[in-house]
């Protein structure tokens, strides 16, 4: 075990500091920075090896050896300076790793770099009205017509579908195969007649997701990822990636809570001096530290290619742990922000955790905590997965004709 910032990492930290001083000076922190400047900054950061470190240079990344402590040094420095990190979202976080692992060379060359720069945006076509937690029962189907897959179906709970250029999703291609084996992972352009998007308003008042109706939508076989019928395996990697998103966001939220606790007063004194508040803050921070070092543990295990049932358990609980923390943290933040904020409608055009302390920011995060809890399997589904897959408990009871949960 070695977490110390060795010479190498100290040097890195200093270099990142200098880089930020030069390219993201303090006066940028609290002002609106135009998109093109952010773009330029990101290109520079990639050039310096600070962003997209796991992605080869040839695909637009900065291709550095796996080094979670370096990632951490960079993330911390960027966050403190409020400098933009890599684009967060389903493209960089889910599609790129999948293409790196399962994509063709052509797919990688065409799609990864623009995704990392935000020129191509993505939405996820997994859930269907009749297949929520149970992906194996997907009904949307794709049939081969020459060099094209032709798709008919109905996807739901698709975030950003109205803005996305592409959908990545699962479609039934082998109707006669066993349920898990008949699914293929396809990339589908959104801008075509066969794709109709209807946004769904979230309780935040924002159109956070959509239904997508696919009626004869087409995509070339060139955009099939992995073998026919292997979609289930390809998507399982994706779900693992999705579950990695939360930790860093929660860390940002915690910073916002701390800032709030320093400025808010309770009975005339800063909230951060209130003994009860202090105890809660410490407990929340302990939970976050647990999540953070659990991540280091997973990364180390992954790097070693070693299997370990306790590490698998840690992986299985990660999402439920994160969503539980998110609810606690946003409740605490909302309360700390005071009744004026507690009464305010969710604010901002979208969730921006770094701006939780702006008007309506806590309400937005408070509501959004549900979205992150529900996405990829609501809490009770998570509990079943943990119980059955990680603890080895027997499957749920079922109705005489029914199939079992998870």
């Amino acid at each position, binding site marked *: 075990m070695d977490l110390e910032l060795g010479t190498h990492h100290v040097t890195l930290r200093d270099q990142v500091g200098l880089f930020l001083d030069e390219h993201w000076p303090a006066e940028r922190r609290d002002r609106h920075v135009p998109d093109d400047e952010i773009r330029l900054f990101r290109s520079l950061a990639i050039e310096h090896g600070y962003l997209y470190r796991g992605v080869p240079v040839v695909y637009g990344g900065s291709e550095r050896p796996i080094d979670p402590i370096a990632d951490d040094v960079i993330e911390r420095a960027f966050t403190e300076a409020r400098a933009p990190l890599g684009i967060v979202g389903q493209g960089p976080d889910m599609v790129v790793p999948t293409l790196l692992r399962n994509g063709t060379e052509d797919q990688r060359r065409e799609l990864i770099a623009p995704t990392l720069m935000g020129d191509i945006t993505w939405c996820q076509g997994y*859930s269907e009205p009749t297949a*929520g*937690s*149970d992906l194996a029962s997907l009904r949307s189907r794709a049939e081969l017509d020459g060099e094209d897959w032709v798709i008919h179906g109905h996807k*739901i*709970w698709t975030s950003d579908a109205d803005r996305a250029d592409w959908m990545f999703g699962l479609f039934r291609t082998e109707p006669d195969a066993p349920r898990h084996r008949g699914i293929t992972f396809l990339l589908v352009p959104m801008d075509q007649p066969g794709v109709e998007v209807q946004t*769904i*308003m*979230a*309780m935040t*008042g924002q159109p956070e*997701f959509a239904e997508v109706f696919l009626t004869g939508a087409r995509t070339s076989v060139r955009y099939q990822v992995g073998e026919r019928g292997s979609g289930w395996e390809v998507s399982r990697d994706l779900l693992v990636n999705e579950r990695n998103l939360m930790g860093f966001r929660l860390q940002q939220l915690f910073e916002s809570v701390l800032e709030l606790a320093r400025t808010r007063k309770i*009975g005339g004194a800063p909230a951060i001096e209130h003994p009860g508040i202090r105890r809660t803050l410490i407990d929340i921070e302990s939970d976050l530290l647990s999540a953070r070092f659990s991540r280091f543990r997973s990364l180390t295990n992954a790097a070693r290619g070693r299997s370990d049932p306790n590490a698998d358990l840690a992986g299985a609980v990660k999402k439920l742990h994160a969503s539980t923390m998110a*609810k606690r943290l946003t*409740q605490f933040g909302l*309360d700390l922000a*005071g*009744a*004026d904020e*507690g*009464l*305010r*409608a*969710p604010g901002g055009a979208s969730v921006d955790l770094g701006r939780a302390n702006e008007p*309506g920011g806590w*309400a937005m995060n408070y*509501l959004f905590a*549900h*979205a992150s*809890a*529900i*996405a990829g399997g*609501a*809490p*009770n589904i998570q*509990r*079943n997965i943990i119980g059955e897959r990680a603890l080895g408990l027997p499957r*749920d009871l*079922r*109705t005489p*004709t*029914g*199939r*079992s*949960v998870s």
Partner: protein
Amino acid sequence: MDFGLTDEQLMMQDAVRALLANEHPPAVVREGLEAETAHDPGLWSMLAGLGLVGLCLPEEHGGSGLELLDAALMAEVAGEGAMPGPLLGHQLGSLAILLGGDHDQRARWLPALASGEAIATIAWAEPGDVWEPDHWSVEVRDGRLSGTKAHVLHGNHADVIVVGGAGSRLFVVSAPGDGVEVTSFDGIDRTRRLDTVVFDDTPVSELPEGVAAAPRVFDAGLVLLAADAFGCAHRLVRETIDYLDEREQFETKLTQFQGIKHELANMVTGLEPTRALWWYAAHALDHIPTAASRVAAMAHAHITDCSMAIARACVDLHGAMGYTWESNVHLWYKRIMFDRAFLGGPDRQRDRAASMGEW
């Protein structure tokens, strides 16, 4: 000793429940979310017809002469139905005039308030989370008031605004009028709108007993919020059961899954006993003055927190649907958020209750 509701009370609740279910069901409430106002004059006159808008006002002024417990029982039903409109502010404003006004003031304002012809509200909070009467800072000079009041319930519909001033004093302003500028606040709960009201050299009439009345009305507000939140949470549990009962996963009713059953059982185990707490708190307001203020604060804090936790769990039990605008869940969820924050929030009420304890 008797700790139960009368037949009249139960019938009154059922009457309002039926009114809301038939005339203003959730589908209609939802239309109001998008509207410029959440005040529906048709609904208001139906409520007035049932004697609800003057419930606690004396019969001599046209009211029903009932107790705060009755008002709380109506708040419960209002919560169940996510009933929109200015009733809460109206009740508190009317109560302030009843308790703080002299004979002439009561005679002047109460009859119209009791009949629903005029709408009252309170302008008590001030920007920066100022809620309690002894924190109010707005000053009145030569019978004229200037200053800003926040979170005024339906300020734009009020004909009579009871304003809180420095020293816990209460003043009545007629609205709309010169020197009363109302701007709407984008609040979490679209069924009960909030406004910011700026007074500028506005003529006021002081309620001579206002200093004594203000804390009592504040306590009444806490109890009405608690009862409303209880009604919301109670309804949400029922809505969740109904929703899950209709849905199957893996060919099994969701309500048959023991994990879900136990979660629902935990919810009602926390919630149902608190019904007796707000009953007691409401009863104490009229009958046990020594306990009333402390138990009002306790009931508010305990019940709104419990209700909020239930609301959060109910969203998750609905799955993605529970997070949509299309589902009704957020009506009650946000209403509880409102009930919880209004007048300062649970922790603040706990601190107040602690300071009133015989410790």
